[in-house]
């Protein structure tokens, strides 16, 4: 039995493996703190995710409590404007990235391999890596509370150009936005790695006879969520890298004075942000679809429909972006008969004479009717 507890045991008759460098050996501690720090077991990682998500849920809840105290009466002086901005930014960022997403990851890790009859996820070490990268990202995001420049204060959506050095360094040297950018990039790595792991697990490690259309609904939602994460997080990662280049190396992706486009940030952000809504809700829908049948002691009503609507929710999630970002696009899409003549603008020759010195040639004038 002693041999079995060693991780490199691969069968009684197998040749003894060569001694490998320490870093490549599978961690063997079974008890104590070290076992939790080195674990690659999916249930233990699930518990780690769950506990850290609850911790950050408390942190985010405390931030919300401070916000509500400030708002309890008009003209309150409980918080300064700066502290308030930091609190609502960090409340949202904490709740989304550090509370709800890891809570889903906790259930994915703990339950999904059991549901498909797998021993563990496909890449257990990668799973551990994803968790610890998540912890690092969470620390980077929150370290601002303990440094002089304060926590991030740009809103969880971080709209350019408020995030540029020109506006975040107005009154004091500020590194909080850099921390925010770096923290989200690190968290993105964690989410993408974790999701790839789940996708590979669900596709490859199902027990014999567990066909795709027999998968429990929660596992289906795991798969859809994982695909959403893999498809949407690259968009925000690109946006964050561009923002980091703007802030640290003087590029002009979003820098207005050099012809950058703040609206580019909005598009990149929301092509991530809207699927994110479904990344947060689909696991919960999957959980409900497991709980209700269990307690009513009946099979799930209309399993294929629920699976397909989950997939369609994921697909349409990318489309929601278009409803928010493009009021002008929708307006332009109106039927031809009601499409109207363009507004007579001060910079058109026809009306220029009547308005005198119109602000012609300014950026705003040129873009007005695009």
């Amino acid at each position, binding site marked *: 039995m002693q041999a079995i507890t060693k991780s490199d045991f691969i069968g009684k008759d197998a040749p003894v493996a060569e001694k490998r460098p320490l870093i490549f050996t599978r961690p063997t501690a079974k008890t104590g703190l070290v076992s939790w720090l080195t674990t690659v077991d999916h249930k233990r990682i699930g518990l780690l995710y769950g506990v850290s998500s609850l911790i950050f849920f408390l942190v985010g809840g405390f931030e919300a409590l401070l916000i509500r105290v400030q708002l309890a009466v008009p*003209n309150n002086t409980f918080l300064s404007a700066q502290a308030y*901005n930091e609190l609502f930014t960090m409340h949202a960022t904490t709740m989304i990235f550090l509370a709800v997403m890891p809570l889903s990851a906790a259930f994915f890790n703990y339950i999904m391999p059991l549901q498909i009859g797998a021993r563990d996820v496909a890449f257990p070490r990668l799973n551990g890596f994803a968790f610890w990268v998540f912890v690092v990202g969470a620390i980077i995001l929150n370290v601002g509370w303990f440094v002089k420049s304060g926590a991030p204060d740009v809103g969880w959506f971080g709209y350019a150009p408020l995030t540029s050095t020109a506006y975040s360094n107005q009154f004091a040297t500020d590194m909080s936005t850099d921390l925010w950018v770096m923290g989200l990039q690190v968290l993105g790595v964690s989410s993408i790695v974790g999701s790839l792991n789940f996708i590979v697990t669900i596709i490859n490690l199902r027990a014999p006879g567990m066909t795709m259309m027999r998968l429990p609904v929660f596992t289906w939602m795991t798969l859809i969520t994982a695909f959403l994460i893999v498809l949407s997080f690259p968009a925000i990662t690109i946006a964050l890298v561009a923002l980091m280049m703007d802030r640290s190396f003087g590029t002009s992706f979003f820098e207005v004075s050099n012809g950058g486009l703040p*609206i580019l940030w909005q598009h990149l952000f929301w092509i991530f942000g809207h699927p994110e809504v479904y990344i947060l809700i689909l696991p919960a829908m999957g959980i409900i679809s497991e709980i209700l049948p269990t307690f*009513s002691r009946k099979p799930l*009503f209309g399993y294929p*429909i629920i699976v397909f609507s989950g997939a369609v929710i994921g697909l349409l999630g990318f489309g929601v972006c278009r409803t928010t970002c493009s009021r002008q696009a929708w307006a332009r899409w109106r039927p031809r008969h009601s499409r*109207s*003549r363009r507004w007579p603008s001060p910079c058109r020759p026809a009306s220029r004479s009547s308005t*005198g010195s119109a602000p012609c040639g300014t950026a*705003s004038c040129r873009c007005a009717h695009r």
Partner: protein
Amino acid sequence: MTLSFTLRSALRRASSLMFVGLLPLLNGGWIYGPQSTFETHGPVAKTQLDVFYVTLWVTMIIFVLVASVLAYATLRFRVRTGESANQPPPEQSHGNPLIELGLIVLSIAALVVIAVPTLRAIWYTYDVPEAERANAYEVTATGHQWWFKFEYPKEQIEGSGTLVTGNELVIPAGRPVRVNLRTVDVIHSFWVPKLAGKVDMMPNRGNHLWLKADEPGYFWGQCAEFCGESHAVMRFRVIALSESDFAAWVAQQKNPARTVPGTQIGATPTASPRVEFASYTYERQRPNAPGWSEGFSRSPFAAWQQKQQADAGESPELIAHGRKLFIEKKCAGCHSVRGHEGAGISGPDLTRVGARTTIAGGLLENTEQNLHRWLTEPNNVKPGNKMWFGGYVVRNNETGVWEQQFSINDDEARALVAYLHSLK
């Protein structure tokens, strides 16, 4: 058993508490106020409210249906006291194609019911309707951190260009107004809850909206996109005037700044400071007191009309002194008073600041006390404002420390208040 009983009574108590908590909602008063979108005063806001109600009703019906089916099933089929928990399972069923397809069709139908008025509203609110375009008025709103500049491209003043005001937008009532939206720094958003909104002011991009006030009135506006430290107090007002009042207002605006008779620049004031200003402290208004409405104890529109008249008891010497201080204290570097001094454009135009109901970007009522406080300690009124940072204090580029350039004492502030309030 006892555990389940305590649990049950706790649940019952919690639900009755929740019901009591919801009671105020039935009162109806909770949706009215100066920035309520439920009291509309123009066709654009009305259209937006209608879309809200369509969506509300559709989702309410869905909520009630789903919740009542869930409640019925939970209550009807629960395990009752005394019954064995190990009964045989109910009849098993995996679904019913007709019901499933029916649910899909119903959801699509609900979406169509929402989509049709939504798209119509988007098309309607996008720009002034073709039929009314000839009658439309045009203004340009520019967002600054943290105040709004309003320009009237149709009103050109001989020798000084377009008519400009700040933080209070005066429009003709009953006429569609197209508002071009610009910004000089970060993204702001233009929102007058009772008239129209909200549309972002994007850097490097022109946006616009249109609004129409049915009746003359006084409306609150607010920046609706997080834009930095003082975003919460970046407000403005919209005053809609009848056609004749508006024409008179425009004619009056085109005049250079008002000069009180008898003022001589350089004259020193003889009057001693009034006591209440010598050690002035800001007293917070008791919020939610009867009749309280964001700094006005009476009709704001009447207050605005009264503000257009010259104050009683103006002191020409004090005003002259204030006008001198306006230059000495570098106010003129960022602000301008057309016809007097100053050509600055980085701060609001002050040509008629005495006639405005609010100061500090719509934050405070324009009273002597508030203006006095705003001039002596702007940093404590509006965090991060550019009058303090860059005006009163300037950053030393080598050390990064903000160094105070000048301050305004009570006497000087009193003279400046008198001067600014004389600008009607």
